[in-house]
């Protein structure tokens, strides 16, 4: 294919050539027909394509707006204060504007992922050609999100381009609606939010499929290798090359150069953020060993730079602190930008020789360079690191203050509270300063894990005290010991795994999937992740990790010195711990749910999003947790889960996303579905209770997780298991039985066997249920029947007898 000339030409000049033409109306349907695939009603849906489904979800899960700002400053009619739901100069009210604000966040996130995908796709097609086959492991359904949304079953890199075209077109349509004078109704902005979220998962999927297919990454590999992680695992005596970002395109050239030039042992290559994850996935399939170390998340960026350890910093895109160049400059660390999204105003050296660039940067002629030629990059970055290591050592670069200086700095503090006010978590910095005056720096040490390393304290301090440096210096011992192991991202769940585990999920005997995704903006430090994962794994939930959460989980060890990655196996089975991979690998989590519907339940998947989402909503007990969600990508990922009916809990900072989707358990009318067997209405439990909400602490989170894994399709065994965990977790972490446990009981067999009698008594005494004590059976009380053959659906057309 790739040698076909472009332009207009007559066919008879060509022979035996296959030509793929997209974009013809009905193209997807026709292609699918040829392949014997049935295409559902909505291939490549436009904004209104799945609106009915959205409105169904939104009638149960109503948008809750908590503005971060009462004002709108989008256009120059304003700025308008919309306080009290007033209308602005364009007529928009607060609700619609907040929905629009959410939409803007979501499409920003979706754009970040899909622009990353487009970049890496261009790059990989340049190298491998359009015909390079997609290979992601032992699956037939390789692109569940893509196929469910677009109806396209991609087989080659080239096929992914059409998918990207669709995603970009739709994101552009959505961005257009952010303009003044477009959508006026909050509910339709919300539908657009869900559309944007769905697109995000397609964009992520394209990104990961492309890189997995070409870069030797693990392909549904349950034995993906363990990778060193933590600031403490970096050997600062060697030249240190630090890479920050999300897009591994350029970094692979650096890794190849290092490997090909036998520099593996001579350079420390460490990564921050998702680039780090993907570096450790590079060429590790079939037993390859990781060629890089993971330092950590965004929260470690400033700390790592401020440590003065890196000799060269390479950044690509996304979640890269905007002050990298400024901070690096202070410590004589050259910065190389490698992606058009981040260029820092640096001179474009893409056409220059590696030698010239190394010369200029090592003599500080420029503080950094933009290098878009990856061959040049591959050579410059490591060679420069080796050179700079010596130069910087000779210069005697001093980074953090000494202990003596710590005391002096503490004394400068006037206890004005500016730092605590500006600290996103309002951490007790003043107390640490107070103790620091007496040379007690333990309180700074305590701040280290809960601090997200944003540096606002430094900015706020009227006395110019470098608060973050003080925390880091005081914590140097902890930091040195910050080393753990993370399982390299394994990629998607394979079809065979789904076939094995699908039934347990749908019936509830595997109590649920807890997907812990996203960023590092935790309310109470990183350790909470470990606590949550360990508890749920012990309880046989499947725990799926990705991105920054996957990294942070690897930093903690149990009493035996084991990380959870070592303790739990990595298959798609109850009680297993899976790291799917980097941020874009989040698509495999939704992909898993789609696969259960498609493979286990044999639902048609192509262009059949609504039916798939409906299936997932009613049958798959999965809850997403983005405990440290900070970014627009996180809310985009969450919104994509939401359109599939998968609920997501974010940490308290997530309240600043401005809107949640919360159901009202007390509104009985909202908790009904159709039974697809006859179209009759049936009551369902109020679970999931929300599609997006926040929790205050992990203690609160635990019972929320268990409860919101309950689904109408649970069989008695499944419901019993889920209910047991709900009650136990509530008692363990909240110190009491949950108020509403009885609402999930359909029959006595839903009750945990050991406590059955005791619970039946409560049902009788407190809730007035009738019990047949002889047979220990419930006679009346439950609002729901237990009927495993019922087919719950929210979609009328899917009922028997409907067209």
């Amino acid at each position, binding site marked *: 294919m790739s040698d076909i000339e472009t332009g207009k030409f007559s066919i008879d000049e060509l022979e035996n050539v296959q030509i793929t033409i997209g974009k013809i109306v009905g193209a997807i349907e026709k292609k699918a027909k040829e392949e014997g695939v049935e295409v559902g009603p909505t291939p490549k849906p436009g904004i209104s394509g799945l609106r009915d489904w959205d409105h169904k979800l939104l009638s149960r899960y109503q948008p809750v707006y*908590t*503005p*971060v700002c*009462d004002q709108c400053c989008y256009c120059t009619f304003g700025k308008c204060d919309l306080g009290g739901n007033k209308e602005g100069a364009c007529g928009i009210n*607060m609700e619609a504007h907040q929905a629009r604000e959410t939409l803007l966040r979501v499409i920003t996130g979706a754009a970040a992922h899909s622009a990353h995908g487009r970049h890496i796709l261009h790059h990989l097609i340049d190298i491998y050609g359009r015909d390079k086959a997609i290979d992601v492991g032992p699956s037939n359904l390789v692109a569940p999100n893509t196929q469910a949304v677009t109806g396209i079953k991609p087989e080659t890199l080239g096929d992914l381009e059409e998918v990207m075209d669709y995603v970009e077109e739709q994101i552009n349509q959505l961005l257009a609606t952010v303009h003044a004078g477009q959508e006026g109704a909050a509910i339709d902005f919300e539908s657009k939010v869900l559309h944007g979220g769905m697109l995000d998962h397609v964009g992520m999927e394209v990104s990961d499929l492309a890189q997995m297919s070409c870069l030797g990454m693990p392909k549904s590999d349950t034995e993906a290798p363990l990778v060193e992680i933590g600031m403490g695992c970096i050997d600062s005596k060697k030249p240190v090359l630090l890479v920050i970002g999300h897009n591994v395109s350029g970094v692979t050239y650096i890794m190849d150069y290092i490997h090909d030039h036998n520099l593996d042992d001579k350079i420390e290559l460490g990564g921050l953020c998702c680039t780090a994850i993907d570096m450790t996935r590079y060429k590790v399939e079939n037993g390859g060993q990781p060629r890089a170390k993971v330092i950590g998340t965004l929260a470690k960026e400033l700390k790592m730079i401020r440590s003065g350890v890196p000799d060269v910093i390479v950044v690509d895109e996304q979640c890269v602190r905007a002050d990298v160049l400024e901070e690096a400059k202070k410590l004589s660390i050259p910065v190389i930008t490698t992606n058009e999204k981040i260029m820092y105003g640096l001179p474009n050296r893409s056409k220059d020789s590696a030698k010239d660039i190394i010369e200029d940067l090592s003599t500080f002629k420029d503080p950094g360079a933009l290098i878009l030629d990856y061959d040049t990059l591959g050579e410059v970055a490591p060679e420069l690191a080796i050179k700079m290591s010596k130069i910087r050592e000779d210069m005697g670069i001093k980074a953090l203050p000494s202990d003596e200086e710590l005391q002096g700095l503490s004394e400068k503090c006037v206890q004005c509270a500016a730092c605590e006010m500006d600290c996103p978590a309002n951490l007790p910095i003043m107390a640490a300063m107070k103790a620091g005056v007496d040379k007690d720096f333990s309180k700074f040490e305590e701040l280290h894990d809960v601090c997200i390393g944003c540096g606002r304290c430094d900015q706020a301090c009227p006395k110019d005290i470098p608060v973050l440096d003080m925390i880091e210096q005081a914590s140097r011992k902890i930091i040195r010991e910050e080393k753990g192991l993370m399982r390299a991202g394994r990629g998607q769940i394979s079809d065979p795994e789904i076939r094995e585990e699908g039934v347990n999920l749908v019936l509830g005997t595997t109590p649920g999937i807890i997907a812990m995704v996203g960023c590092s903006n935790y309310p109470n430090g990183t350790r909470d992740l470990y606590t949550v994962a360990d508890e749920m794994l012990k309880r046989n939930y499947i725990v799926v990790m990705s991105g920054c959460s996957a990294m942070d989980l690897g930093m903690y060890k149990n009493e035996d010195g084991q990380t959870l990655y070592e303790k739990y196996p990595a298959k798609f089975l109850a009680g297993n711990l899976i790291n799917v991979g980097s941020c874009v690998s989040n698509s495999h989590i939704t992909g898993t749910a789609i696969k259960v519907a498609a493979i286990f339940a044999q639902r048609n998947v192509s262009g059949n999003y609504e039916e798939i989402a409906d299936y997932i909503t009613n049958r798959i007990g999965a809850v997403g947790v983005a405990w440290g969600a900070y970014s627009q990508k996180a809310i985009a990922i969450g919104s994509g889960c939401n359109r599939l009916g998968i609920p997501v809990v974010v940490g308290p*900072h997530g309240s600043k996303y401005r809107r949640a989707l919360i159901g009202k358990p*007390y509104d009985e009318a909202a908790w009904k579905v159709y039974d697809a067997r006859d179209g009759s209405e049936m009551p369902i439990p109020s679970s999931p209770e929300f599609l997006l909400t926040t929790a205050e602490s992990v203690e*609160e989170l635990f019972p929320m997780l268990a409860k919101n894994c309950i689904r109408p399709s649970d069989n008695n065994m499944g419901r019993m298991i889920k209910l047991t965990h709900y009650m136990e977790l509530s008692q363990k972490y909240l*110190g009491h039985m949950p108020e509403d446990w009885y609402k999930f009981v359909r029959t006595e067999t839903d009750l945990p066997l050991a406590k059955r009698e005791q619970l039946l008594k409560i049902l009788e005494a407190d809730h007035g249920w009738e019990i047949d004590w002889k047979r220990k059976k419930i006679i009346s009380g439950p609002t729901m029947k237990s009927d495993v053959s019922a087919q719950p659906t929210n979609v009328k057309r899917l009922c028997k007898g409907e067209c």
Partner: protein
Amino acid sequence: MVDTTKNTLIYTTSGRKVAKPVNPNVAGKMISKAKRPLLVVGAELLKDEKLIEKAITIAKKGIPVAATGHSITALVDKDIDVKYINIHSLGTFLGDKNWTGLDGQGSYDTVIFLGHKKYYLDQVLSGIKNFTDLKALAIERHFMQNATLSFGNLKPEVHLEALDELIENL
């Protein structure tokens, strides 16, 4: 008398409508006059034993308590009317005319907040401020700009004093 109205410094502005700084005696009387008050305590309460005591004392004056986060762990079996609820849900339900409250006795008119993360409560209050007519009273250690009435930014010890004075006025 503790003056809790002085330091109303905020982290970022949100809009024109800003909480009125309030003194503890006025706050206490306001709660007393409320027809259906609700004390909402958060998990930050657990960080200070003394704060827990104050919350229990207020509750014992007959004010029902919504315990958010895992704050209920310190409040069960204390002979007070307390129920767990997620604060984001609570913030929503409070604005719903069809919600009959934690006890089914009807909607609340005055909601008092104590023991919450500042940035989190700020958001919950933002929803209440913009979309309900509720009186929201923050008796936190920090000035909560989105409340109807709020204490200013206080030192921990002054905060406890202020709560005592508030309790005296219940």
